[in-house]
């Protein structure tokens, strides 16, 4: 990261990509969106050529899905299946493809196995929450936030020793601590253990911790492609989505190699929706709106933490991508 296309994002909108009533995606439209998006990002005419810029047949590819809001919102199985299909088109064998996430109970609720080619692995770091044997003991970020006893966050083992490339598939979601959760949050907090320790009371250290984790090698260099799944979105209460009350339907996918640029666009997508719903901005840090009692789950004008949407700009300072809007080149596609 930021890869070969810093400051460039392909934004693909398709009105028919999802049925808003049933929340059923249209796989054929998703296929078209992905092909057009990859071509718009790379300038290639053939989607296969576009994928081949990132992935070689010999690669072992991790697909970092996001299932923290499942089953209400997650990396849509039809999107993940289309990524798998494109990987196989460029020559990657199914058993070289690993869908991964931290928590088994979340992934189990999605049933990716019903959508992807047989032989594709579905791997989780923690069968029971808190298990650490799925993490590499020698690759970690060590820091103390709140005098916690365990001061390490360890990288998931397959990123450390198996994958040669990673495709990152976040959703378009609001996040109570980090403001929004996109490419950076998904690849960082979704690839390391013991990250909840960064929040306590109404204080969260996501401002610096997200970028710090995302910049750790080999995670940084192996994450070559960002595909933000915005068929559905969450405009408040994220990363969870227990009810449809705060879900919305951007019907959009963003493609890039630069996670900062993609997340910079996400900030405005979420904040614009919140404004439209007369909710306080993701940028609002006023103490009068902060209450950790749980009201934020019902009230979009209550924050559980002092939000840290500045984590995206911070990551730019670490060299992970381009933050300034006027320096981000967006290729818009309508399907």
């Amino acid at each position, binding site marked *: 990261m930021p890869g070969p296309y810093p400051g460039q994002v392909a934004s693909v909108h398709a009105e028919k990509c999802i049925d808003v009533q049933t929340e059923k995606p249209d796989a054929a439209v998703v296929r078209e969106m992905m092909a057009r998006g990859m071509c718009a990002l790379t300038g290639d005419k053939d989607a296969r050529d576009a994928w081949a810029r990132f992935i070689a047949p010999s690669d072992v590819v991790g697909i970092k899905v996001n299932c923290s809001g499942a089953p209400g919102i997650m990396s849509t199985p039809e999107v993940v299946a289309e990524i798998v299909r494109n990987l196989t088109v460029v020559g990657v064998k199914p058993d070289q493809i690993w869908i991964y996430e931290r928590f088994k109970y979340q992934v189990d609720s999605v049933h990716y196995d019903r959508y992807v080619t047989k032989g594709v692995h579905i791997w989780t770091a923690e069968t*029971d929450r*808190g*298990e*650490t*044997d*799925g*993490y*590499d*003991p*020698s690759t970690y970020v060590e820091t*103390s936030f*709140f*005098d*916690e*006893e*365990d*001061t*390490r966050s360890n990288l998931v*083992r397959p990123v450390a*020793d*198996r994958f040669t490339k990673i495709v990152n598939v976040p959703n378009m979601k609001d996040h109570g601590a980090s403001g929004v959760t996109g490419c950076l949050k998904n690849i960082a907090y979704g690839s390391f253990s013991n990250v*909840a320790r960064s929040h*306590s*009371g109404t204080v969260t250290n996501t401002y610096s911790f997200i970028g710090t984790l995302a910049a750790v090698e080999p995670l940084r260099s192996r994450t070559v492609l960002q595909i933000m799944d915005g068929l559905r979105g969450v405009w408040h209460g994220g990363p969870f989505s227990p009810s449809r009350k705060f879900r919305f339907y951007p019907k959009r996918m963003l493609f890039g190699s630069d996670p900062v640029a993609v997340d910079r666009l996400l900030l405005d997508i979420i904040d614009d929706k919140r404004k439209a719903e007369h909710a306080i901005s993701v940028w609002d840090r006023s103490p009068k709106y902060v209450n950790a009692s749980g009201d934020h789950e019902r009230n979009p004008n209550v924050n559980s933490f002092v939000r840290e949407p500045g984590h995206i700009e911070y990551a730019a300072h670490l060299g992970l991508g381009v933050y300034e809007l006027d320096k981000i080149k967006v290729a818009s596609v309508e399907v």
Partner: protein
Amino acid sequence: MPALLLAVLLPGLYWDQPADTADRLRKAGIERLYVPAGREQAWRRLGFTATPFDRSRAAQAAAPKVEYHMDVASATRVPWVDANGWQFERAPGRAYFYDVPRGSAALAAAEAFAYGIEAAVRAVPEDLESFARMTKFLGAIDQPRLPVKANIGVIDDGSDLMGEVLNLMARHNLLFHVIPAPDTQYDLNIRLGAGAYSKEDAADPYAFAMQIRRQLTDEKRLLRIYGSNVVLARLTGDGAHARVHLLNYGNRPVKGLRVRLLGSYARAKLTAFEHESANLADYDVRDGATEFSIPETGAYAVVDLDKVGQALPPANPH
């Protein structure tokens, strides 16, 4: 402290039931008992090794366990551990009596063994078999005691306030000796009311323990535990060997526990209760410290380390 202490008496079952319960004990695998004074001969005639135990001279030990209060808001999400090690360090020569609910007897035996104290454990009938398995395990791993390792000296004024400080230090694996006077062999000497250690500060024992931790620094801690908030450790050792006792106070095994020990140890061996075939994983010696992982830690495990000998192979790739 002598360099090598004799092996201590293993913890035993306290049994004040009548002799007609002998078959139940035999069936569970119990062979050794603590009994009220005057009953030992009757039990010996039945083939048991029976020792009289005077509860009135014994200190009460708490049932070792974790208190999970998920419904209570608190400054920390760390569960509360009921452990007795700090009391044992404070008064190591006393005998202790555990009266424990179901599920705690085996851990109580392991805790007493790890701290080398004389202890009688009254267990509910459902726990007799697990207690017997634990005491057999302890008997198999017993060896002459090495000196207790610690780099914090605490001058104990005997107050409840200091007791809470000791409790919180033990809770965070800040290894201490209770000493009569400051001693330069320790990296820190703690005396309430002296220097940076005011009684006012100690009124918040958690914050006080964290103050001690920061003053010592994590880099100087003799032992660190990663991957669990409910595993407490005791460390013994001399110049060439070390033994790490790991007590899991939680109600389920811990998978992937990581331990960091100051000092370079060429080889190590894991002996884990009810995980006989388990081996250490990801063994790593660097920068003056030794680290290893334990695939699954049940109620109790012991790791014996040697500074000399054939080095373990590098950490296994996964």
